[in-house]
């Protein structure tokens, strides 16, 4: 293990987050067995009280996870200097077999926690807490993920050694190799940009439909679900577009396909401007769709559709921001990949 302040901070965050979620899921277990809102018994009142703590704790964990995800990537980039062969975050992540799995687990945690927060927020709007059971089942589903995430992060950092030889983005994101990364890089720029444009249009259209209040309920619901699916599509398409086209525009270099180097200072941290709206938009879109997969409780007749609509609109706004940043990158770049 390398004693490095950001690593210490990340390990600390992982352990705190994992501990808090483990505790919350123990509580979820008890709650699912005993929850009965109609009862005025002291045990029920105590349970209700504790849900305040769980909500606060989860919001805290979520905020921490967002910070940790950014810090994790940022730190991986910075630590590249310590590994032979590493030039950016890819090299650092590759320095241990646990590197990329840890990153994926962190991303999964981010989405899971944001879905939970959406459920929690909506639940609190219904006078009979109609989503409580759903919410705590979801929490029980998230708990193993949190354990895995903390385990992978810890394994990754323990496994890191400064004298490891690693391979970097140049060898990973090369079109004529095997593996997902190479597959992503082998997309040609025009079709990748076409794909993301189509995905964004789809997400925009469904999102605006889901966010407009004037459509019939059934249509709104379908639009919401479609928007959720489209959001996931945008996420995938955006990653492909970043690897196979957008990063090239940023580096102004026709063969540099790295999705991490764009987070560097040399490129004005433009990667953060791409990834943050992308993650936010996907989480919001998926959250809105998740609400619509549930049977509509009577007490949320008004609140749930309006929140789901609001989430869809916010998701569209985030994607629009992503599209604007991407367009600006292509526009300002000195590199011409298509036509010419």
């Amino acid at each position, binding site marked *: 293990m390398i004693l490095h302040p950001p690593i210490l901070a990340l390990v600390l965050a992982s352990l705190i987050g994992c501990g808090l979620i483990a505790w919350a899921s123990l509580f979820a277990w008890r709650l699912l067995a005993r929850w009965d809102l109609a009862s*005025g018994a*002291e*045990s029920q009142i105590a349970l*209700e009280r504790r849900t305040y703590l769980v909500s606060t704790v989860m919001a805290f964990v979520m905020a921490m996870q967002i910070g940790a995800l950014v810090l994790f990537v940022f730190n991986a980039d910075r630590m590249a200097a310590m590994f032979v062969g590493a030039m950016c975050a890819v090299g650092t992540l590759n320095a241990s077999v646990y590197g990329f799995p840890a990153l994926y687990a962190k991303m999964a945690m981010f989405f899971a926690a944001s879905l939970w927060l959406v459920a929690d927020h909506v639940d609190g709007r219904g*006078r009979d807490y109609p989503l409580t059971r759903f919410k705590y089942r979801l929490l029980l589903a998230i708990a193993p993920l949190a354990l895995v995430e903390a385990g992978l992060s810890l394994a990754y950092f323990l496994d890191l050694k400064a004298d490891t030889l690693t391979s970097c983005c140049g060898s990973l994101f090369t079109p004529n190799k095997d593996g997902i990364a190479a597959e992503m890089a082998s997309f040609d720029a025009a079709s990748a940009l076409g794909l993301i444009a189509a995905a964004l249009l789809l997400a925009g259209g469904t999102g605006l439909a889901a966010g407009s209040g004037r459509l019939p309920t059934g249509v709104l619901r379908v639009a919401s679900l479609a928007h959720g699916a489209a959001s996931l599509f945008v996420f995938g398409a955006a990653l492909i577009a970043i690897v196979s086209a957008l990063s090239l525009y940023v580096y102004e270099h026709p063969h540099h396909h790295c999705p991490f180097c764009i987070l560097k200072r040399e490129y004005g941290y433009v990667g953060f401007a791409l990834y943050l709206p992308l993650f936010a938009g996907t989480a919001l879109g998926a959250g809105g769709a998740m609400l619509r997969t549930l049977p509509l409780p009577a007490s949320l007749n008004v609140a749930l559709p309006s929140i789901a609509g609001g989430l869809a609109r916010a998701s569209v706004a985030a994607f629009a921001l992503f599209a604007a940043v991407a367009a600006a990158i292509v526009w300002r770049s000195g590199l011409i990949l298509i036509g010419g």
Partner: protein
Amino acid sequence: MLELADVTKLYNQGRPNEVAAVRGVTLDIEAGKVTVLTGPSGSGKTTLLTLIGCLARPTTGRVRLNGEILSGLPEKFLADVRRRTFGFAFQRFNLIAGLSALDNVMLPAYPLGPPHRRLTARAMEMLANLGVDHRAATAVENLSGGEMQRVAIARALVNDPAIVIADEPTANLDGALVGQFLDIVATLKARGKTVLMTSHDGRISGAPVVDRVVAVADGRIAEAAA
């Protein structure tokens, strides 16, 4: 306006020291009237008041406010009903020391989030109505007993509640102040407020402004006098 149907409240449920503070009470509180709960201490009248005022949920039984069932509401919504419907004045005033009279009066409105200027103006108006606006900036621990009580009442009224609840309002007051308090109650009644008090003070239960006296004994309603 406010109905209790077969309401029970147990404390320390399931433990050896379980107490039934209220047992099977059914009670109607009429709008616009002044009702006094009397009874010896330990009779359960204060617990009854907390159930009526949505400070606690009954263990069994129903509480209805204007037809809406409150007894099954989670605390979050109960608190919302409480701050919009009830104003509380407590036996020991329960003002927060260290804050000014004005800040104390404004506190119940904080969770509702009204514009600050409007809230300040309203709190000043409340203090002025009760004749203590000149003490607005004074820390409450420096007020006299009568002033404290007025500030406490101003605080109870700041959210413009339909129902004002007072727990032993005169327990710490001397004779002259009791009269003043009854005058305030009369004003409230004239403005259409429902007032509910507990008291074992004969000067209160016997006052002409009181419409109804309910005697509570051993967690039950003993008699209801007109």
